[in-house]
C-alpha cells in the first residue's frame, strides 16, 4: 500500500516546454510561485531565527531590533557544545536517553508488528476474522480513558520512574502498523511459502527467512514512524519519568520555557539538536514517508 501512494504522488505532469509562455499562463505561474515562496518563508524564517540565536555567543542579545532571521554575524558553534555539555544537565545525556528509547521502540515495533501481521496475512486459524476486527477496533479506543488505568497499572507494577512503560508496549504491536504490514505481506507471492515448506521449512523459518526480508520496504515505514513517534514523545516521559537523569530531550526542553533567566542561545541550540535527527530521518526517507501518509488519506 505504501508504494502505491508513493507513485501517485511522484507521478507529476511533465514540466511545460521551455520557451514562450502565454501571458495568462505566466501570470498564473507567478501567482503560484509567489504564494509558495511566502509559505516557504513561513516555514524557513522561524528555523533560520532559531539557528541565528543558537549561533550567538553568550554575551550577544538573542532578541534584536530588527530581527535577524538568518545568521550573518555570529557563527559560534560553541553554543551547541555548551548545550550538550552543560554542567548538571548536559543535553548530551538527554540525547543519549532519547536515542536509547527510540532504538528499543524501533526494535520492538519492527519485530512485534511483523510477527503479528504474518498470521493475519498468510495463515489460517479459527477466529482470524474476529481477531482482525479486534485489531481494527483497538484503533478506535479512546486514548484519554486508557491513560489513567494504564498509569495505575504501571505504577502498581513498580515501573514508575523507569523506561519500562515507554518501551514494553512497543513489543505488543500497534493496530495501524499491523494493518499496514498485513496489507503489504498479502502482496508477497504464496508460492514462496510453498516452496519453502516443500524444502522442510517451518512457519518460523518462513517468517524469519522469507516474509521478514521481503517486507523490508513496509518495515522501513514502520521504523521511521516509530522513530518519529518515540523521539518526539513528550506526554509518556512526562507521566512516567521523575529522575532528571532519565529525562528525554522533549521533557528536558519543556521545562526551559517557564524558567527564569533562561539562556536563550543555549535553549535554541538544544531545540535545534532535538530537531536534527527527525530532520535527517525525514530527508533520507521523505519519498516513502510522504507516500505512506498520502495513501492513508486516499483510503479515508
Amino acid at each position, binding site marked *: 500500500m505504501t508504494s502505491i501512494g508513493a507513485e*501517485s*504522488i511522484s*507521478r507529476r505532469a511533465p*514540466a511545460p516546454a521551455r520557451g514562450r509562455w502565454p501571458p495568462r499562463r505566466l501570470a498564473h*505561474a507567478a501567482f*503560484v*510561485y509567489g504564494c*509558495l515562496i511566502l*509559505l*516557504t518563508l513561513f*516555514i524557513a524564517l522561524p528555523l533560520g531565527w532559531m539557528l541565528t540565536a543558537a549561533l550567538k555567543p553568550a554575551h550577544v542579545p538573542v*532578541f534584536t531590533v*530588527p530581527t535577524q532571521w538568518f545568521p550573518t554575524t555570529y557563527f559560534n558553534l560553541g553554543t551547541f557544545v555548551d548545550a550538550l555539555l552543560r554542567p548538571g544537565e548536559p543535553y548530551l545525556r538527554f540525547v543519549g536517553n532519547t536515542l536509547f528509547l527510540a532504538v528499543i521502540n524501533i526494535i520492538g515495533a519492527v519485530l*512485534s508488528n511483523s510477527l*503479528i501481521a504474518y*498470521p493475519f496475512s498468510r*495463515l*489460517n486459524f*479459527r477466529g482470524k476474522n474476529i481477531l482482525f476486527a*479486534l485489531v481494527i477496533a483497538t484503533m478506535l479506543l*479512546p486514548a*484519554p480513558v*486508557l*491513560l*489513567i*488505568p*494504564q*498509569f495505575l*497499572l504501571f505504577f502498581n507494577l513498580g515501573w514508575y520512574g523507569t523506561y519500562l512503560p515507554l518501551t514494553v508496549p512497543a*513489543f*505488543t*504491536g500497534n493496530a495501524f502498523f499491523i494493518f499496514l504490514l498485513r496489507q503489504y505481506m498479502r502482496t508477497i507471492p*504464496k508460492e514462496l511459502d510453498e516452496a519453502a*515448506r516443500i524444502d*522442510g*521449512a*517451518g512457519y*518460523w523459518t518462513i517468517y524469519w527467512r522469507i516474509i521478514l526480508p521481503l517486507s523490508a520496504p513496509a518495515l522501513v515505514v514502520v521504523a521511521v514512524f516509530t522513530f518519529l513517534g518515540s523521539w*518526539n514523545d*513528550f*506526554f509518556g516521559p512526562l*507521566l512516567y519519568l521523575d529522575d532528571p537523569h532519565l529525562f528525554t530531550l522533549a521533557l528536558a*526542553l*519543556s521545562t526551559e520555557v*517557564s524558567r527564569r533567566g533562561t539562556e536563550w542561545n543555549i*535553549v*535554541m541550540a538544544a*531545540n535545534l539538536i532535538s*530537531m536534527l535527527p527527525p*530532520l535527517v530521518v*525525514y530527508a533520507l526517507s*521523505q519519498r516513502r514517508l*510522504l507516500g505512506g*501518509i*498520502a*495513501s*492513508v*488519506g*486516499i483510503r*479515508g
Partner: protein
Amino acid sequence: MGMQLGSQGVGGEGVDLSAVGGGLEPRRPHLRWRPSTAAGRIEERAAYAFLLPWLAGLLLFLAIPLGVAVWLSLTDDQLLRPGRFIGLDNYARAFTRDPSFYKSLSVTITWIFLAVPLFLVTGLLVALLLNQRLPGMTFFRTVLYVPAVLSGVAIAVLWFTLLNGDIGAVNQLLRQVGISDPPQWFQDSRWALPAVALMGLWGVGTNAIIYLAGLQNINPELYEAAGMDGAGPLQKFRHITLPMLSPTMFFLLIGELTAALVIIGPIIVISGAGGAAGPADSLLFYMLLLYRRGFVEGQLGYAAALAWILTVIGLILVWITFRFERRFVYYQA
C-alpha cells in the same frame, strides 16, 4: 517459537490446491474455517504463537485498563490510597462542583471551531497550489512537510519565543510593517488561542500532503469533459474537485476533530504543569484539566470520570459528523 512443519503441507486453506492435488475441499472463504487435519492444527497453533505478543498486550494494556477505567471513575481513588466506591459522584462533581470543568469545555469547544475549519481550509488551499503543473513542486512539498516531523515540544518552545509580546520576532515584524500595537499572544487571554492556532498553521503541510494525494487521484478526464461543456475554473472546482475530494476532506475532518479534543503536549509546555493555564485560564484545555486533576493533584478517580465524559463528547461529535457525511460526501461507485 520454533514451530516445525514437515513437507506434508496439506490441509490448510492457504495451501495452493492445484499444487497439492485432489481430495481436499474446495476453498470456501466465507465459511468459518476449521482445521481438519494435523497440519491444519499445527498451522493454527503456529498462528496463535505468532499472535501471542499482541494478545498479551491486548489483555494487559487495553482490555484490563478499559475495565479498570470504568471502576476508577466510580471511586475516589487517589494514587497512593485505594478508592472507595462513591457511585456517580465524580460525574456529579464535574457538572456541578468543578468550575474549571465548564471553563475547560468552553476553551476546547472554542478551539474546535477555530482550529478545525482553519486547518482544513488552509490545507486545501496549499494542496491546490502544490497541485499546479509547474516545475519545482516536489521541493515545495518537501519543505512544507518539515514541521510535521518535529516534536510538539520543540515547536512550542520555538513559537513561544517567537510570539513573545515585547521582544518576539513576530511582533518585531508586525511593528516594522506599521502595526504599532501588535497582539500580546500568549500573554493576552483573547490572543492565546489564536497564537496556538498560528503555531498549528506551521504544520499545514500534513493536511496539504493528504489533500494532494486526493487531488491527484481525480480522473483528469472529468476536467476535460467539463472544459468541453464550457465550465470555468471555479465551476470545475465547485462541481468536480470538491465532490471528488469530499471523502479525503471527511477523513481529515474526523482526524482534526479528535486531535482538537485531546490537544495537550504543546499546551503544557506553554502554560506549565500548575498555576493558571495562560492568562485568565484561556489555555485551560479539557485534557490539561484532566492532566492536572489526575496527575498533578493525584485524583485519579475524578480524572477517570473526566476521561469518560470527554469520550462521550467525542462520540457525539463524531456521530454528528457522520450524519453530515451522507449529505456532503460523495463516494464513487
